[in-house]
């Protein structure tokens, strides 16, 4: 834990990586205005790893879009410490660029000068253990490799907040497990704050310091758990399974309410 604590201390002047105050969002639907998010208030501390957990229709992705600044809340305010980086379920790498050039584009758009980009890109690829993939085209990489390049590209933004929208949902279980280990390692090494959205309870518990459960239609904060299990965790660990069970029961209760009328 040594690395994370020191990094958090260095940034103590900043109170939060993201702060949401009474955020609501509604869209025009077939039956008038449809409330998707209802009064969400949430702080992500610098260096903190938070997962947002919920069933379909809880507005997880809408919430991430709001925090990423791709959309505006109907009510309430959102503040972030700089522009957040965003990682999607699909890798969203640009197929006309090589893996390395994808990362360099992120650096370029951030204003990194030309002769530093190559080195930084190589370094980021090394961080996600893809040394030697610089010149590879996106279609030449496996699903897991693509998500690691996407992670490297997101890290290239050197943002204080990394938003992740079910980034491992489309991967096979073995690859996902390995990427959990990698994400935990990289999070500890870089000290970045992470807001991670998922519908996988065990994944949420495996990764996070804090799990926030959202109810569905509209999305509200239903409950919150602080995960005290020390890292590195494994998804099969008994404490992870135990907490997952508890959260799953609450989640099922939330879902059940929708069938009763």
């Amino acid at each position, binding site marked *: *834990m*040594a*690395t994370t604590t020191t990094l958090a201390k260095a940034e103590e002047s900043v109170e939060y990586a993201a702060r949401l105050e009474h955020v609501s969002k509604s869209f025009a639907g077939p039956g008038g205005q449809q409330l998707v998010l209802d009064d969400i208030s949430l702080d992500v501390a610098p260096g903190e790893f938070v997962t947002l957990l919920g069933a379909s229709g809880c507005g997880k992705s809408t919430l991430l879009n709001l925090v*990423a600044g*791709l959309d505006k809340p109907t009510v309430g305010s959102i503040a972030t410490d700089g*522009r*957040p*980086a*965003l990682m*999607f379920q*699909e890798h*969203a790498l*640009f*197929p*006309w*660029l090589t893996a390395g050039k994808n990362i360099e*584009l*992120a650096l370029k*758009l*951030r204003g990194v000068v030309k002769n530093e980009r190559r080195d930084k890109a190589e370094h980021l690829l090394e961080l996600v*253990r*893809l040394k030697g993939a610089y010149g590879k*085209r*996106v*279609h*030449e*990489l*496996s*699903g*897991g*490799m693509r998500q690691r390049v996407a992670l490297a*590209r997101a890290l290239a*933004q050197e943002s204080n907040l990394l938003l992740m929208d079910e980034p491992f949902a489309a991967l096979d279980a*073995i*690859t996902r497990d*390995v990427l959990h*280990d*990698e994400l935990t*390692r990289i999070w*500890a090494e870089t000290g970045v704050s992470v807001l991670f959205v998922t519908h996988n309870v065990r994944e949420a518990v495996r990764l996070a310091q804090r799990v926030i459960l959202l109810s569905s239609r509209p999305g509200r904060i239903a409950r919150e758990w602080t995960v005290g299990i*020390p*890292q*590195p965790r*494994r998804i099969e660990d008994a404490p992870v399974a135990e907490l997952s069970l508890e959260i799953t029961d609450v989640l099922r209760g939330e879902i059940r309410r929708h069938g009763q009328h």
Partner: protein
Amino acid sequence: MASTETTPAQDAGSVEAGLDALETTATGRTPFSQTFKNKILPPIIAIAVVLVAWSLLYPVVDDPSKLPSPGDVWGEVEDQWLKGTLLDYIWGSVSRGLLGFLLALAIGTPLGLLVARVKFVRAAFGPILSGLQSLPSVAWVAPAVIWLGLNNSVMFTVILLGAVPSIANGLVSGVDQVPPLFLRAGRTLGATGLRGTWHIVMPAALPGYVAGLKQGWAFSWRSLMAAEIIAQSPDMGMGLGQLLEVGRTNSSMATVFLAILLILFVGIAIDLLIFSPLERWVLRSRGLLVKS
């Protein structure tokens, strides 16, 4: 955590390396013999079949003023070659065609971008642009001659009217097909406005754009040939359309055939040498070309 972490982290790394190796397949180049069998041989056979059919048909028609023999046409090739005019005819048309095409490119590209990205412009000019694509640009030859006189600018006008809509429409459909995910990803990376257009929209739209260029070239060439055949004047210089007209006035069917075949071959050659490789390169680099 640092000391306890080393083992599982190293473990993850080695598992990862194994997964990466398992999930990527090596691709090599196809051997030449296979390329020859699959790509080169079929068109050669097709040409041979056409020549055989032509030779068989020749004695049936039995009228060289209507159907010349393949030998007659070949004799015409030799004749024009010895006179030193064959390449002039070809180059005259090709240089006009390519120059006109480049002009169309310079106009069609910004026009396409405007139509694709600005709502008002699309509503106003989108339908006209699509409509122009179905209007044969030969229709413009007569008014162009009246406005501009019998000279090269008529040719360029007709080429532009034929190719600009194709190029612009190709770009518009290319932009329309850009996955929204790329735009979102671009915006989170800070590519907005003109930077977004340059770094994300243009490269993402490239396949549609190249398809538009390919079609634009076909339209350029077709319009140019029509214009050369219709607008006859000594000031026009040499071109394949003029060659065809020379054959017509001399009642030499062999010359007419030669001109038609050359028009066909030049069209195919430019496509094979420039546009097809460009298209294949664009598709292959994105993994969109499936090896058959």
